């Protein structure tokens, strides 16, 4: 392939973005048509790139080893394909869901800019263009959240500050790695994380997992679920950021650094993953709003990917990466379904919804399939990838991580039983009496994603052989088998049986809560919510006590006040008070000497003369 073609996936969405920005806002139809067709073309480009030979495109840029270098190979082909696919589905969905938004022109513009920069970040083979695109995504994310309207600006700033902080961490990590290895080309670097390079690993890891939405950098996501347009949620936190973050994390753990099984960095990553799974799913369980519930799952699921990649065992890594693409599909589908419900019913509050399955059968079908997939029900894609992560984490010997993952599985299923039950089953609520099914551009993307969830589960050989194995090939130690398809759907082994057991526990929990709550599905999580210690923790969490952002801002303010009050102001006081006083005292003293008395001045003059004579005498001697 002609290397210059690598610019197409960046330039095509960029042109579409410019088109949307420049087209007067009154013209709606044309914008939508061009956007949908353009996005389809983007998919076509990505498909045509797929499976091609490895291609390298280099353009000298800034000197110092900073080149604009793009590299297309198996992994970037795969991510690019996913990015383009989601772009297309979201654009299609937006034609109906976003219609009537006063900032439509900006919306499509930023959407395509996001796609362009994501493509750039995926293709970059030099750290500087990588950071250029990666950090540039902050701006489009910020802008897209503000499109949500009133009150969304606060959340947008929050997302920006958190993202900015983590990106700065990554920049520092890159700088350290650069100074250690002497190169900026990603494909040339492969080091063992120890000493300074371990610091670099952690810093870059922060950048990658924060983009993916891991704890504790996730707190803008639940806020954005309320404030941002639902299509933005389905596009960015649910799909694109997972793809990019986990792509980067895999690059870090597989290529840039050689992560050893159970080494300290691997354990840190797994711990962070396990904590993310458990803590976020506990938060998801008690949510009373569908979108917020989904957003906490968008955090929790990242934990599985991190856990899988952190195992540094082929089956775990493969499971983590597979989980990434699976998650992007079902979580995006779930958000889109929530958006469909919101548009028709006017709300996503679980309490106000109920019995929608009859009037919105297609949305309900999509939602149920995606929810079953995220819960890991046999034989859907979520089951396959989760099993792989369970196996991988079990093989490391630290069973505690596997147990955490199982706990996550229980609560995930329980919360989706609650959500699905509340929204689609049970009696119709009065508010939603006249609800109808959404239009086809809304339910088609949902159904496509649901179908893919089934496909990737039942025919898991397809994604595993086509996408995942080529990524691992050449990196795994010789002789390690990379064919995970043989028993991907096997149920009769201890781990799979325990997983199934977990689902039964979840069902029991839901049923118990449902009965206790007076047959109201949205109260099904209350028994767990009301447990003695948990209740206090939940209350604190609702008060944002654990929100690192809120605490961090307070910390920043305190730090700033400290420096201002004890360094800056004293320095100024030195000039304003001390120097002025000294000056005043000096001029006062001189003033006092000038008393206007003739004798005084005469004495000065004589004294001066004596000094001059003495000086001349001294010099001439």
């Amino acid at each position: 392939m002609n290397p210059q073609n690598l610019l197409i996936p960046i330039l095509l969405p960029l042109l579409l973005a410019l088109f949307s920005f420049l087209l007067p806002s009154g013209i709606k139809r044309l914008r939508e048509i061009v956007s949908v067709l353009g996005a389809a073309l983007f998919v076509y480009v990505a498909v045509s790139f797929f499976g091609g030979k490895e291609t390298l495109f280099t353009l000298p840029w800034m000197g110092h080893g900073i080149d604009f270098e793009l590299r297309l190979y198996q992994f970037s082909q795969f991510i690019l394909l996913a990015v383009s696919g989601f772009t297309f589905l979201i654009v299609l969905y937006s034609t109906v869901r976003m219609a009537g938004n006063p900032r439509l022109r900006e919306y499509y513009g930023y959407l395509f800019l996001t796609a362009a920069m994501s493509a750039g970040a995926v293709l970059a083979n030099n750290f500087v263009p990588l950071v250029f695109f990666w950090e540039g995504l902050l701006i489009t994310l910020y802008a897209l959240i503000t499109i949500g309207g009133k009150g969304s600006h606060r959340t947008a700033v929050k997302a920006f500050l958190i993202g900015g902080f983590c990106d700065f961490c990554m920049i520092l990590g890159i700088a350290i790695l650069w100074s250690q290895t002497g190169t900026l080309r990603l494909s040339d670097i492969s080091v063992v994380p120890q000493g300074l390079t371990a610091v670099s690993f952690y810093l870059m890891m922060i950048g990658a997992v924060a983009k993916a939405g891991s704890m504790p950098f996730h707190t803008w996501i639940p806020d954005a679920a309320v404030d941002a347009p639902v299509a933005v949620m389905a596009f960015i936190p649910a799909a694109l950021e997972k793809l990019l973050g986990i792509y980067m994390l895999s690059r870090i753990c597989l290529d840039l650094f050689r992560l050893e099984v159970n080494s300290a960095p691997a354990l840190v990553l797994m711990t962070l993953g396990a904590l993310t799974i458990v803590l976020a799913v506990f938060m998801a369980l008690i949510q009373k709003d569908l979108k917020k519930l989904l957003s906490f799952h968008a955090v929790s699921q990242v934990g599985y990917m991190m856990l899988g990649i952190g195992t540094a065992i082929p089956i775990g890594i493969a499971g983590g990466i597979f989980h990434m693409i699976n998650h992007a599909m079902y979580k995006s589908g779930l958000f889109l379904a929530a958006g469909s419900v919101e548009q028709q019913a006017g709300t996503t509050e679980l309490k106000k919804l109920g019995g929608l399955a009859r009037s919105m059968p297609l949305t309900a079908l999509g939602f149920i399939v995606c929810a079953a997939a995220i819960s890991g029900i046999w034989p859907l894609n979520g089951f396959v990838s989760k099993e792989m992560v369970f196996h991988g984490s079990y093989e490391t010997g630290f069973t505690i991580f596997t147990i955490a993952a199982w706990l996550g599985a229980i609560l995930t299923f329980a919360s989706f039983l609650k959500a699905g039950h509340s929204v689609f089953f049970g009696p119709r609520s009065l508010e939603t009496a006249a609800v109808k099914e959404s239009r086809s551009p809304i339910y088609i993307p949902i159904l496509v994603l649901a179908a893919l969830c089934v496909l990737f589960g039942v025919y898991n050989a397809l994604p595993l052989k086509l996408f995942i194995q080529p990524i691992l090939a050449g990196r795994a130690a010789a002789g390690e088998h990379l064919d995970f398809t043989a028993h991907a759907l096997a149920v009769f082994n201890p781990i799979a049986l325990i997983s199934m057991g977990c689902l039964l526990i979840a069902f029991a929990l839901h049923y118990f809560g449902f009965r206790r709550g007076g047959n109201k599905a949205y109260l099904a999580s209350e028994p767990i919510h009301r447990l003695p210690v948990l209740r206090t923790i939940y209350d604190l969490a609702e008060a944002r006590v654990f929100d690192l952002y809120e605490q961090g801002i307070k910390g920043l303010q305190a730090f700033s006040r400290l420096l201002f009050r004890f360094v800056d102001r004293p320095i100024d006081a030195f000039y304003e008070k001390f120097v002025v006083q000294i000056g005043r005292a000096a001029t006062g003293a001189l003033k006092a000497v000038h008393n206007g008395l003739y004798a005084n001045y005469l004495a000065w003059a004589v004294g001066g003369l004596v000094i001059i004579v003495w000086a001349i005498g001294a010099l001439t001697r």
Partner: protein
Amino acid sequence: MTNNIQTIILLTIFVPIVGSLTIPLAGLISKRARSFWSVLIALATTASSMLLIPFALRGGELAFRKTLALGLDFVVVADALSVFMAVASSFIGALIVVYSLGYIAHEENQNEYYFIVLLFIGAMMGLVFSANLVFMYLFWEIAAIACWRLIGFYRVRDHVLKADKAFLMTFFGAVAMLLGFILIYAQTGTFDLTAMRGTAIPGIAVLLILLGMFSKSATVPLHTWLPDAGVAPTTVTALLHAAVLVKIGVYAYARLFSYTFQLPEGWQQAIPILVVFSSLVSAAAAAVENDLKRILAYSTVSQIGYIFLGFAVMNPMGVSGSLLFILMHGLAKAGLFLCAGIIIHATHERDIRKLGGLIKTMPWTAGAFIFCAFSVIGIPPFGGFFSKFMVIVATVQSGRVWVAAAALFAAVLTMYYLFRIFSAVFMGEAAPASGHREGTRSMVFVVVTLAVLSLLAGLFVAYPTKLANIAAGEILRWIQ
């Protein structure tokens, strides 16, 4: 060829200086003629400095002298460093003069205003092309006087006091610097920089000269005059922060401490720490202040720290990063101040707590503000990203990981306080005194231009980088 270059350099220096003297004469004809004439002189200065770019890109270096008495030769040096500085300063200066047409139109003493502004730009041009310490000092003090007069432009008693403060602090620094120059003269017997490359100078001279640079470039602990200087007309503040004044100190640093002299080891280690401390303290102050212009002023102090840092780590990446930083910061900070000017012009309010919701009435200003803010924070694709990134990376490469981490922390604070301004001023509930309109056409045109330039400077960063890399190579040549 060489003669041509000489003529262009002399034109770049003397067009604004001599031109400034003709402003009052033009003022006798009419206001319109005077304003037109001022813009013309500023543009001519920019154009003539830009004519030097091809020469600098070829890696040309030229020094020529006019012999005067007492060894005080007027030595002019043109290389990539001086051309880069001259272009960046004169270009931003010219944009500010254009903006002044709208901003200053209703003030008194406009003759004086344009006269001093152009003299100021001329002094900057003289400074960057001088390779004689005495002439550097001369232009340095012309700038100080111009600055003093402009800060006290409104002639309110309080403003004049602030102007005095600025003058006294920078003058104190300058005198210390002059003492340092004399020490160097005692050692080398010359004021000619071209003859002194690679000379090791004593620590005490470094300290004295550093006082001069830090006072001029408003670095902790000699910075507090700069926020106070915000009482000046906003155009003046923008000029001081972005184009001429505070860049003098960093330019002098590059010319003296990077290009010419060899510093004692202790200072080489201490300066990066000092300037990062300055960055942090001022970023913290910016996060606490509530006055729009004071926040931006502290922000300048904070960003100046990065520029010093890049020069201080003494590797090619750092030096080119800092040079780019001068350009990027100039564009973006001028944009921010001029946006602030539009806001203050329309609302007569500088306390960000009393402002709000202006994005509805001033969409262009708001857009320009956020663009420039992105650039100052260092977010791609804006220009500020590359300069900050290069400085940080260079700091790490020189082995100072903690210094780089502190600098990045200052960048987090930058992000915080700039968004704080944006949220408070443009978002939220509309301010009580509603019905504000956008600024005049020339004002909005200039801020939008600066914002777009900040973006273009990032997208086409390869071009300024080329010149900066050549300059960095020339500056560090004596080390290799």
